[in-house]
């Protein structure tokens, strides 16, 4: 089986680099082909990297709270750039403050993300989902959870 390609990055004006460095290390170790665009990455950076690398999935981190603004329109931008089937994950501390997780989850699903993770999600959880979504069930996108 070919290695699946993941574009990893921290979106917006967000400089939190520690999680990004660790995710790079861990996802690579788990057998994925990781294209790490690092912190302070715009939606355009994500889309360009995906096009260039023929990525299967965008693994978007947002730690600093402004993720809600930064993530809006990413699905549309992907669609318009011909990345129609690409999977979108988002995680970190994706909104400002301690909010009800159900609401936040819904808000990001309706932006077109396939999976949305709360603070403190372990890398194991992410890897399990990646394996499921990328290897076991290619049609996952359509039935977005």
């Amino acid at each position, binding site marked *: 089986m070919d290695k699946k390609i993941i574009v990893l990055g921290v979106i917006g004006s967000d400089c939190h680099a*520690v999680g990004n460095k660790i995710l790079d290390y861990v996802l690579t170790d788990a057998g994925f082909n990781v294209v790490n665009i690092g912190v302070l990455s715009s939606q355009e950076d994500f889309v360009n990297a995906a096009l260039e690398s023929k990525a299967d999935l965008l693994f978007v981190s947002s730690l600093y709270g402004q993720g809600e*603004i930064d993530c809006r329109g990413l699905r549309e931008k992907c669609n318009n750039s011909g990345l129609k089937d690409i999977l979108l994950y988002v995680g970190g501390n994706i909104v*400002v403050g301690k909010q009800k997780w159900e609401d936040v989850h819904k808000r990001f699903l309706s932006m077109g993300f396939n999976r949305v993770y709360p*603070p403190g999600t372990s890398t194991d959880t992410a890897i399990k989902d990646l394996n499921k979504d990328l290897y076991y069930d290619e049609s996952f996108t359509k039935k977005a959870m």
Partner: protein
Amino acid sequence: MNLINKKLCDEEFFKTRNEVLESWSTGKEVNLHESIEYLKKVPNYKNFSFVLKKAKKEGVTLVQPRAGVALIDKQIELLNFLSKEGGADLLPTTIDSYTRQNRYRECEVGINESTKENRSLLNGLPAVNYGIKGCRKIYENVDKPVQARHGTPDSRLLAEIIHASGWTSNEGGSISYNIPYAKNVSLEKSIADWQYCDRLVGFYEENGIELNREPFGALTGTLVPPSTSNACMIIEALLAAEQGVKNITVGYGQCGNLIQDVAAMRALEEQTKEYLNKYGYNDVLLTTVLHQWMGGFPADEAKAYGIISLGSTVASLSGATKVIVKTPHEAIGIPTMEANANGIKATKMTLNMLSGQRMAMSKELEFEINIIKAETKCIMDKIFELGKGDLAVGTVKGFEGGIIDIPFAPSKYNSGKMMPARDNYGAIRYLFTANIPFSKDLLDFNKAKLEERAKHEKRTVSFKMTVDDIYAVSKGKLIGRPN
């Protein structure tokens, strides 16, 4: 490069100043003469420099939270709550992350949406967009000194606006607000831009207005060895002093080993003072700040209180002039105002219990102070050598060469080859020194300390330790041992 560690001459300063003020509409409102008059009316109890000076004299540790929301009125409400209900001694205003990247247009979006939804969609206050009018409103409606806290590589316009608004302190510096906060900003540029910010403060000083400056000692907040952050603090203090800054607060982020933490704070204060004196800046009033644990927190609030209180213990035992407070919401998101006040209260209680108590000198403490000073000196010597005596030049070359190497920093101007890890007692040591120019003794010392841990844990010294240590505190331990 024409960078040089020398006080900007007026001509240069004012030329640059015109450009800076042009860069966004609110810049035009700033008028230095008017600002000086405004600042002259700031009473001592609302002036950062005075309040710090007084605390230092009395041996008291002041408490300051972090806090910033998108809207002015909410910010005023927040600050007053933290002051009155929480008991904060010094007030912050944390600036949002778009402003930090000078993306004022995106701030407008944030302000509008926050107003519409009546909740803050920004992680701080976009002070530049509000300009003098908004910022003065904040200053005028609180009862304690106000400081801007941010993470802005180029904060020239921000500095102009906040100082002109009665905010008597600005946090940051050319290394500390660049390397941990930016990806593509060269040190050459950030040093020059912070020379401007410092010169602005120096200019006010020359006009009888005392302002405080605070290099950000915690850097990436992630396993930064004390000598690395102390070296950055010394450099930024010297660069600021050259521009005429007279009231400087150097900082350090709690590591977790009590003796190392107190040693780091003592070394920081003593060694910075030595360097300031050595280079002729004898009239700088130097104070210190302890940042409560800056790495990943546990989500459990009771556990968070444990860390907050331990950080306060460090602040008190080391005699810090102030302590920056975390909150029980740290792992999750920007705290509610109640959670923020609770962090302050737990901190104050701990400080009050320990008021007047310092860590007594012991063989162990003395040893650790000497280690930190010796490591710092190795770094500083090489920086001056590379700069052929010029600190600004040396710093740029030093980062190029990995002489200073800040762990986990996003900046491409940081080498990123050094790796830190904890020793068997939780003190942070250098696991890979990479290009840091330590003497053989110091290299051996760091190595031995990590071997000791490795042996205890029955594994070899490796990057795996670093990763384990990064997660450890959020999982409830200081040291990331295999289980």
